[in-house]
């Protein structure tokens, strides 16, 4: 029997509406990829939304053209992968292994990257042509 593989892709302006549409895509993907256990769906959905939100909030356009956000997600039998593209963004550096702010500090921001780290097996942030790319991968044990 072939390995199951379910895929979703979306490209749109780097806005909150596009992030919401990606979230809807994830809901649809999980309905189809019913072989993925619930805790893994929950973790990966949050990681993808955090990264896509980071693009909307922090990415800076390289030129006058507006930024675009593209998200490609693939669910396989023991692996979830998302590629998140900041299209038209200026080169950037993201600290992928910064720590979680202390609870007692009551900071209102700065947890997104640490959450992504906690939720995925591997996270890569790299530059390809005029695009910054996040690659998030979560390995899981199938049910």
């Amino acid at each position, binding site marked *: 029997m072939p390995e199951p593989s379910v895929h979703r892709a979306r490209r749109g302006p780097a806005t909150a509406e596009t992030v*919401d549409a990606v*979230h809807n895509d994830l809901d649809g993907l999980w309905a189809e990829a019913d072989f993925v256990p619930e805790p893994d769906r*929950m973790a990966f959905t949050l990681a993808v*939304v*955090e990264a896509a*939100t980071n693009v909307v909030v922090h990415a800076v356009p390289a030129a006058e053209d507006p930024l675009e956000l593209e998200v490609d997600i693939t669910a396989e039998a023991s692996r979830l992968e998302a590629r998140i593209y900041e299209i038209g963004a200026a080169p950037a550096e993201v600290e992928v292994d910064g720590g979680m702010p202390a*609870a007692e500090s009551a*900071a*209102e921001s700065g*947890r997104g990257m640490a959450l992504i780290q906690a939720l995925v097996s591997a996270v890569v942030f790299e530059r390809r042509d005029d695009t910054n790319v996040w690659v998030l991968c979560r390995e899981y044990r199938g049910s």
Partner: protein
Amino acid sequence: MQFTVEHKPTFAHITGTGRLNMVGAPKLREVVAEVVSGGSNHVVVDLGGTEFMDSSGLGALIGCLKLARQAGGDLRIANVRPQVQMVLELTSMNRVLTPYDTADEAFRDA
């Protein structure tokens, strides 16, 4: 994200339905600011209908907690679903925003 506010004898009961994300977070801040400025500084945010929360939603809850405390009161959360519980645990914010089973239990000690 939709919010409703009900004024109970000892606290304001805010329910949030939908996704507490970068769109929902500023709305929550607005609702809580209005409730606190209206004189209710004991606030329960009931997350029974909140299917999803991200770090921006969590940041809004922390901001609202500070607001209620600055007004001499407190903000507590109730009825959280597994996804919200996951975010609270991963960030250790369950130490500051301890979830109560129900809104009525949240201020039973008040």
